[in-house]
């Protein structure tokens, strides 16, 4: 049996079918089956289940009294905390919680616009890997019969590697410069193969005359 407090009946539902689970709901040590869909479930509840976070204030902030620090954006509201990025005092209306950080609307919008805040980046294009792919795939032999395109794909591979050299890479794996370097090497190889083919054809045709 679970060692945590019981779950309010009917409040915890099965993620597969939505059926209400029993009073203790989940067990981290043993797998239990959903009473309806019989899917095996193993897991645990956390403190946030019993103590949900305080509701976000959407109305007016607390009015400031004499001697209180006031919000930078709402001078009539009492400041509750400073912005973690710029240090401006914020009222509960202007506080934008981002995980454990608290930002003001200005810092949040600046961070969103220029991808400065790692916490709100939705996706990234990996230039170095694109250069590697464009450099390596045409060399695999499939495109060897289309050798004139090797000049274009090799050039593109080098160009992409150089464009992406200073740009941010993967959020978790870093810039991966090795991929860009290989992209440049493979790109040069492709151009070399293309030039080689050109000279080979020219040589053969001149000797056949």
């Amino acid at each position: 049996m679970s060692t945590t407090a019981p779950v309010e009946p009917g409040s915890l539902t099965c993620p597969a079918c939505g059926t209400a689970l029993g009073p203790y709901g989940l067990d981290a040590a043993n797998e239990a089956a959903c009473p309806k869909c019989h899917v095996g479930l193993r897991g645990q509840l956390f403190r946030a289940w019993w103590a949900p976070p305080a509701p976000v204030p959407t109305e007016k902030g607390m009015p400031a009294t004499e001697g209180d620090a006031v919000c930078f954006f709402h001078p009539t509201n009492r400041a509750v905390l400073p912005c973690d990025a710029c240090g401006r005092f914020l009222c509960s209306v202007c506080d934008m919680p981002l995980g454990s950080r608290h930002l003001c609307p200005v810092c949040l919008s600046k961070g969103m616009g220029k991808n400065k805040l790692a916490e709100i980046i939705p996706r990234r294009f990996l230039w170095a890997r694109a250069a590697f792919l464009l450099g390596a795939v045409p060399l695999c032999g499939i495109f060897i019969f289309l050798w004139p395109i090797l000049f274009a794909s090799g050039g593109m591979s080098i160009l992409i590697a150089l464009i992406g050299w200073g740009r941010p890479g993967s959020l978790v794996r870093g810039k991966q410069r090795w991929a860009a370097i290989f992209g440049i090497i493979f790109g040069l190889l492709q151009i070399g193969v293309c030039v080689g083919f050109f000279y080979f054809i020219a040589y053969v045709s001149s000797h056949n005359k």
Partner: protein
Amino acid sequence: MSASPEPTYRKVRGGGYSWKGHGRLWLANDYLLEVNSTFIIESYRRIFFQDVRAFVVQRTNVRRIWGWVFGVTASIAGLVAGGILWAAAINRHEEWHVALYFPAGFFGLVSLLCLTMWIINLTLGPSCSCQALTPTGWHALSAPRRLGPANRAQVEIAAAIQAVQGPPPSPAPAPPPPAPVATS
């Protein structure tokens, strides 16, 4: 605003493939980062530890389905390859029997590939899906997809969540049993 330093991430063992690409989980200081990669594009989803109400590892039938797909394909391709080879053997005096070796080789290769995939699928262990419950509902994570890594990931993620939220409340002490009624 000055650029904030990029947080450091710790890889959670176990990945998984889906239509969104290859998925993997990473632990930051205060959130779980789900990374889906299509080799050149990475998309990110964050689940903040303070919002997580429950974390569940749910068994799925994916391993069984792939087992059937690979097993049946390997068997059919193997039978076809064997049949073609048999036809080539009984017609070995004909000149054209050599042409039968090419389709036999193709189907044999398909059979071998599917057999390898079948064995890999079998050895990876039971399949599962990890789910996190937040105030907005259940969120299916794209990794880990196998039970062994998922169980280890659950321990790791639960420790990180409890470090932020604190331990869950312990059960209330059971009421004392009613005193026996004295009988005269």
